[in-house]
């Protein structure tokens, strides 16, 4: 898979807009992608820590009155550069996939033919 580190890229992408804490990052990804992308919220933290170790992001604890302190993350210069590389790679990838998909002729089979084909496929042991 070309984009194994997608979660990291998504996090860096939303941090472009400014500093955010963990919950806000997950929320922002959901909102910006119009719920097309959803991040497992618990899995966000390992990704954030990895990015911080790699110095792509930085964090700061911000105390809150009467509530647990929040750790706020922001993008570093190195993270910004890395994100630009990711964007370029993604654009190339999307362009490549897009050009292949647009060159494939649209299927003309009727619903009945498609159903027959699917039944045959299953009968041959396909899933």
């Amino acid at each position, binding site marked *: 898979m070309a984009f194994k580190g997608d979660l990291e890229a998504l996090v860096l992408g939303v941090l472009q807009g400014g500093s955010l*804490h*963990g*919950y806000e990052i997950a929320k922002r990804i959901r909102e910006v992608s119009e719920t097309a992308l959803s991040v497992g*919220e618990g899995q966000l*933290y390992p990704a954030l820590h990895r990015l911080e170790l790699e110095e792509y992001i930085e964090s700061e604890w*911000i105390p809150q009155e009467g*509530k647990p302190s929040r*750790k706020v993350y922001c993008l570093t210069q190195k993270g910004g550069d890395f994100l630009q590389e990711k964007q370029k790679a993604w654009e190339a990838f999307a362009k490549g996939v897009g050009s292949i998909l647009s060159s494939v002729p649209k299927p003309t089979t009727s619903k009945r033919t498609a159903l027959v084909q699917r039944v045959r496929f299953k009968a041959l042991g396909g899933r």
Partner: protein
Amino acid sequence: MGKQLDWLLIELDRQARSQLPPEQARELMLETRAHLDSAIQARMELGQEPQHAEEDAVAAYGMPEVTVTQMHEVYKTTSPSPNMDRRWLAVAALSCVAPIVYATLDLQLSAALVPFGLALVIPAVLWASWGTNRIQWRNLALIYFPLTVVLTVMYACLWMPLGYSRIPIYRWSSTLNEVSYRMEVVQAAIQTPIRKTEDGWYEVVQPIYWPSVWEDAQRYNSEFPTLKQANDYWAQNGSDIRRENHHAIGELRKMRRDLLSSHANRSLARSVQLFVQVGIGTAMSFMALLFGLNLVAWKAKRILNQVRRPARTVERA
């Protein structure tokens, strides 16, 4: 706090404690608490009942073991544990202390300077290493260790000709086990005249360096304001002094003889000894210096990054 939230936090804590270094476990717990607090709050603002909001937030968070396992992978593959960091910091601090102690012993710096030096060095090391998440192994392996070895060997090599020479390098103070002999006794032992230094203090002219004993020098100066008086005193009382201190004088003479013969006969051994002694001291000093520079550079970079930080979107409470 409801049962769901309670379960998640207890389970996460249990898993984190067993798999993560203490600092990361504590940090994950704090982050998770803050996360769930925000998540529940946001759901309640949308009109959900507290019970449902909590259940939803816990469900959205996912399984604690997955989070902890992934977190464990992060720290296993990208960084040594913070315990390792602390060990390295201890090594760095010791490396900084070592040259001061070394200098105190070898260059006769006053022992009073040790706490002063530590007061300067330790806060600097602590400041520079505060917030250090990992040791830069790559830098250590490729720059600091090789550079330390090269510099140490070069510096220690400079001392080797001294080992081959007959230049005395040993100090009597260490040989005498910190016993302070009166100046007259030393003078009698090595049978050389006394003289005055540029500062106006008396000292015994000798081939082997004799550290001045401050109190003794003061006494000598107050008793004999001029060199003539001192020499007259010696002429009148020299034989008595020799007689009274014949045991100490004999001991001193023997030590001096041993030292001189060891200089003459064991120059190669002395060279090697010097190389090793100087090498260890220098390696520690260079290592401390390089390590310190690394930490300061790292910290400076971090500060610069903070300066360049984009505007916050989170409101401070």
